[in-house]
């Protein structure tokens, strides 16, 4: 409840012209946005771009937010949709050879301080990227973001049965992949 009140105050202040309130909201949620986008895309630069896109959407649309759901759920839904759209666009660009595949960017070293954890992230990211998008999405929502099937169903507008089936296949594939690591 306290979280909701803080968010409400920040949104209200931002709408009333306090730009620093938006900065505080961005700082509060930017890591969550980044990690969801990063798990979906498996790439720091893509995640970085999605963070910027989501912040821009928030900046432009925050005035219309009515607190019918929590601000986090709203931001989470925007981040997820943006990530999927970004991946679809990237696929089209790569099909049309618009992206320079040869110049793949290497992630800068100063994003994650803990090297051991960075290696584990690399391992799980590779496993996630091997999953079809729908399975990857449900796996991330369920296990990293700890959402219930009911919550995922509300966000995605899909039946719980279909989500469970996607998750079952994702879990099975990831377990097999990590066994070989």
């Amino acid at each position: 409840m306290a979280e909701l009140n803080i968010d409400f105050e920040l949104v209200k202040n931002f709408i009333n012209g306090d730009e620093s309130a938006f900065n505080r909201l961005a700082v509060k949620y930017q890591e969550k946005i980044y990690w969801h986008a990063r798990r979906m895309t498996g790439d720091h630069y893509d995640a970085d771009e999605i963070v910027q896109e989501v912040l821009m959407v928030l900046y432009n649309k925050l005035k219309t937010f009515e607190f019918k759901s929590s601000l986090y759920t709203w931001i989470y839904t925007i981040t997820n949709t943006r990530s999927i759209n970004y991946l679809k666009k990237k696929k089209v660009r790569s099909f049309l050879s618009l992206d320079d595949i040869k110049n793949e960017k290497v992630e800068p070293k100063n994003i994650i301080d803990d090297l051991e954890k960075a290696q584990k992230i690399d391992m799980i990211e590779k496993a996630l990227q091997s999953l079809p998008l729908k399975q990857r999405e449900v796996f991330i929502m369920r296990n990293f973001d700890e959402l219930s099937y009911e919550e995922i169903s509300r966000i995605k507008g899909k039946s719980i049965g279909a989500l469970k089936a996607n998750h079952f296949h994702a879990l099975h594939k990831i377990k097999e992949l990590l066994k070989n690591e």
Partner: protein
Amino acid sequence: MNNNEEKFFSYLHGQMNYEEKKEFELELIKSADLNNEFNDYKKLMNIVSETKNINLSKDYSESIITEFRNRLEIKSTKKIIPNFRYAIASVIIIVVGYFSFSVLNKETPDEINSILKEYSYDELNSITKNYDFSIGLEKNFNDNDISKIDSIYKQNVSVNLIESIGSKATDYIFVNNNVADVNEYISDNDVDLIYSQLIDKQIL
């Protein structure tokens, strides 16, 4: 589909009551397969939880909002620039029109000026109103050039113009070639729209 995941999830996340927990632990003792499956699940969830709450470095975190503010600044600058687009477009049209006129008539600017001096305003007005641009085109371009121009117009301009200002107006402009009367049929906004479409399509 044997899906024990919900049971595993509830157990590990402390969502089972005492009886459910005891029952599940008993099942694990009884079934070696379930036990193996649960151990694999636990290993995976350990990796997930180890990679779940990792803080981004301070430098990178701080750079996110800085980058956002920079983008916002650029975006607001871009919003101002389109206001000048029509003015720029008008200048370009005048320059292009002047050179096209010079090329079509094979005259130098000085010669044009001396010719213009010989006519009154009303005479010039009458000439421009009745001038058929297609005759000028036919005189100075061969069939191949005209079909090339026609195809560029069809591909790049006509569809968008028809969508924007309606087929009647575009027919009037481009089929009848009575360019002098355009202003009677389209508004200033439509003219602005045409300029911007031509610029967007890189015709200008």
